[in-house]
């Protein structure tokens, strides 16, 4: 099962290596790992999607907590939360097929970010499921290139 975990970390050289190294050394299976700034300039947030059962997840949480620059660990399993992934995808779309592709983009509330003679670059945000559904639907047109940010997450309601 996939779990979303976030870790607030001190902005220090080597933190990313520390955490990814720990995951590799302990054989944890990472689906995606995103690092970005937060409202506090001294802290970054890592959002990690891990695959594993409850026992694995418990170890992941504890091992993350043990890494010294990690200030706080949060597990989003069984919480009300918002999850978003950003997709950039270059789809084969010569003029005769372009309207169909653009229709799909609109249906998914995506945006065409760039148009070239025989392809378009589409940007789309949403949950992983939504992104994957879109990818499946455009696959028959021909995917030239694909990039995803990986999931970031936040709790719903007023709580931080």
């Amino acid at each position: 099962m996939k779990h979303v975990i976030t870790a607030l970390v001190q902005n220090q050289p080597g933190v990313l290596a520390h955490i990814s190294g720990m995951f590799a050394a302990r054989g944890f299976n990472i689906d995606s790992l995103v690092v970005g700034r937060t409202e506090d300039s001294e802290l970054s947030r890592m959002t990690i999607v891990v695959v594993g059962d409850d026992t694995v997840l418990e170890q992941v949480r504890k091992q993350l907590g043990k890494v010294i620059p990690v200030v706080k660990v949060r597990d989003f399993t069984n919480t009300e939360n918002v999850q978003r992934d950003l997709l950039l995808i270059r789809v084969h779309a010569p003029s005769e097929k372009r309207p169909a592709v653009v229709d799909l983009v609109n249906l998914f509330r995506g945006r065409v970010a760039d148009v070239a003679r025989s392809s378009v670059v589409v940007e789309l945000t949403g949950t992983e499921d939504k992104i994957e559904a879109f990818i499946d639907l455009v696959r028959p047109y021909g995917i030239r290139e694909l990039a995803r940010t990986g999931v970031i997450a936040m709790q719903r309601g007023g709580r931080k």
Partner: protein
Amino acid sequence: MAKTKYTKYKMKLDKGFVGACGGEIIHQMLMDQGVDVMFGFPGGALIPLFDVLYDSPIKLVITRHEQGAIHMAEGYARATGKTGVAIATSGPGATNLVTGLANAYLDSTPIVAITGQVRSNLIGNDAFQEADMTGISRPITKHNFLVGSVDDLGRIFAEAFHIASTGRPGPVLIDVPVDITVNKLARAADLTMRIPGYKPSLSGHIRQIQSAAKVINASARPLLYVGGGVIHSEATAELRAVQEKGQLPATTTLMGLGALDESNPLALQMVGMHGSATANYATQECDCLIAVGARFDDRVTGNLDTFAPDATVVHIDIDPTSISKVVKADVPVVGDAKGILAQMVEFIEPTDRTEWLEKIADWKKRYPLGYEPGGKYIKPQSVVEKLGELTDHDAIIATGVGQHQMWTAQFYGFRKPRQIITSGGLGTMGFGVPSAIGAQFACPDATVIDIDGDGSFSMTMGEIVTAVHHELPVKFIVMDNEYLGMVRQWQEMFFDKRYSGTVHPCPDFVKVVEGFGAKGIRVEDPAKLTDALKELLDYNDGPAVLIVAVDPEENVYPMVPAGKSLHEMELGRLA
């Protein structure tokens, strides 16, 4: 004269270190931490720092090899509980520390390792003697730092000592580019630690402690399983109080030896692959296993699927990652063993468990640790046993790794904490000689004896020169079986006696150590063993080495073969 110069630094350094160079700041931080001795080896990247240390009241012990330095720091730390300090230059000096860092990490030993690094502006350029030490050491340290500016130096040293010595202790590495040891501090240093994510949980949750006591009180066949955490936590008295009040039988891991007084009938000696039959049977039959500062290492549990099948598991540990990592804890208690046990004893009720205690007494009678005496060779077990008697079970004992280490664990008869200094988690051959020397630096008046194997001893015996230089009365006993015996034993038992790579011809060790400037003694005749041991123990004019030619094909029993359950151990002569 050294004193005057130091006072000068002190005056200069009082005002937030302004005007001091990096080397002076490091030195002041070490002084503030109460460091009285450090172990290391010089090199280009350390010259400015060594220049400061030249006038220092801190004793700088120069070893023969950086591995020796860090193992000495470990021996010092293990004997005292204080943080050991090792120092090595950039590149090869620093990489020579790696084994010691890994060793200290697995055995939770508080160490601060200082490594020189190439100049800041050369880092990443494959400069001469550059090695990415923070990268290399990350998985084998509790934490590490690459110092970016002289402004951060003081704070980083404060953080390093704090992290190394608190919570579950461990090694911390500080990599210091050489220019930073020279640079002068322009504005006052802020030493306030900035480690908001480091909050080791110390006091256990009272409800968990009560639940633990309840489970223990309700059990018919409880067993305490005690690890090195009890030693680190200085919780021996509290543990023994719980043991006494509840009349709880107890076993220890290799790292936990000394937490129990092995002369106490409730002590079942060591558990695991080479544990006592009683401890292993008791583990398999107990209905409540109370792990304190232990982590269910595979050398302890044997086959996990059949380990302690009937036990409700109470697990007390300061490191939350140790709990339910290997064996699911029914009652986890996170925190420092000392405080937890002190609280728990209040809730422990004396309970009548005659049947269980009788069963244990019976195992003890039927399956004592023992060996077949006699024959033309000296039995290695008899060396340890005799040494225990002659030293009143009171010496500090270091070991190498191998059969001799297991015999030491089985036959010395440990009585008090910090008495055994051995490489448990990593199993580092060569640990004995330097760790014994480090322990002797820490405890100059104690009898410190390294019980070593010919293979392990050969790896680091050059450090005896360091002991000669400092006139330390460290004692070494080398169980010379001319084999890498522990591996040979596996080959004998599981590989048709094909002794591939384990025949280990030795030099004339007596001549070698005499060349080093130490006293050398050799004994082969069982009838002369006691006299030889006495001669070793009576020699105090510097290091002395006793080479004991032991029965070359003696095996360690009991033995739980790899992958088997604890109760499926081979008992040797008792079978």
